[in-house]
C-alpha cells in the first residue's frame, strides 16, 4: 500500500506543531447520482505517539473532509523525540508512519 500519511513538524521553544496529511477517501456512504449506492469508508481512529506515549487520539466520524488534514501542538518535545502516527478505518484499513524530530 502506498504511504498515506505525510507529516510536517515545526519545533519551536520546546513545543512541536504537528501538521498531518492523510490520503483517504472519507466516504459518508449513500446514493450515487446514477442510482446505486456506495459504502461508507472513513477513518475511525487516528492517534499520535510521542516516545511511545499516546498524546493525541481522535475518534472520527465521516464528517471529516476527504484527504484529512490535522494539526495539533505537543509541548515538552525536543530534537530526537520519536513520533508515531497511526490510523484505522471502518473497513479494516490501517497505516502507520514513524518519524523523529
Amino acid at each position, binding site marked *: 500500500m502506498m504511504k498515506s500519511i505525510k507529516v510536517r513538524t515545526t519545533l519551536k521553544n520546546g*513545543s512541536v506543531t504537528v501538521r498531518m496529511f492523510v490520503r483517504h477517501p472519507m*466516504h*459518508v456512504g*449513500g*446514493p*450515487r*447520482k446514477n442510482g446505486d449506492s*456506495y459504502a461508507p469508508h472513513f477513518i*475511525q*481512529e487516528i492517534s499520535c*505517539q*510521542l516516545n*511511545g*506515549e*499516546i*498524546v*493525541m*487520539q*481522535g*475518534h*472520527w*466520524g*465521516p*464528517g*471529516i*473532509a*476527504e484527504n*484529512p*488534514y*490535522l*494539526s*495539533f*501542538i*505537543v*509541548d*515538552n*518535545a525536543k530534537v530526537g523525540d520519536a513520533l508515531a502516527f497511526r490510523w484505522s478505518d471502518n473497513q479494516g484499513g490501517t497505516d502507520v508512519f514513524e518519524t523523529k524530530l
Partner: protein
Amino acid sequence: MKFSMLDKASNIVAISPRLARRTLLAMASSVIVTPLLWAAGVSVSRPSEAFKDKSIEDVMRTLFGDANIPLSDVIQITMTDLAENGAVVPIKIQTKFKDVSAISIIAVENPIPLIAKFSLGKVTSGFIATRIKLAKTGDVVAVVETTEGIFQARKKIEVTTGGCGVSDR
C-alpha cells in the same frame, strides 16, 4: 500516659515486619503499574453511540450526560463565516485552558452531528486544526473538556453547497 504511648509504639514495631512486607508489595505493584499507565498515555474507547445520534441534543447527552455546558469566551473557533464548499471547511479550535483532556467538534445540521472527538494528552496543547464537512447552514459547536469543567463555543456558518449530499463519484 507516656508509658502507654511507648507501649503502643513498640506494638507497631512488633507488627512492622508484616506491614513492611505489605507496603513493599504494594509499592512494588504500584511501581509496575505506573509505567504501564504512563506508556499508554491517553486511550479512550470510541464513543460509538454518540456517532449514531441524529441530533445535537442526543449527542450532548450521550457524551456529557445532562450537564449544562456553559459557553466560554476562552474557546476560539476560527473558521470562515461563509463556506462556499461544504465538503471541505477548515476549522481551528484554540483554547487557553490548561490541561485540556478532550475537544469535540459537532455540526448541528449534519446528518451525523458528531464530527470528531479528540482526546489530548497532558503535554498536548488545547489546539486542533482540521477540515470538516458541513451539510447546510448551521452552528458548529466545539466542546472542550478540562480539569476545570466542560465548556463550549458556537459559531454559525453559512454553507452555499452542502458537503454530505449525493455523490458524483
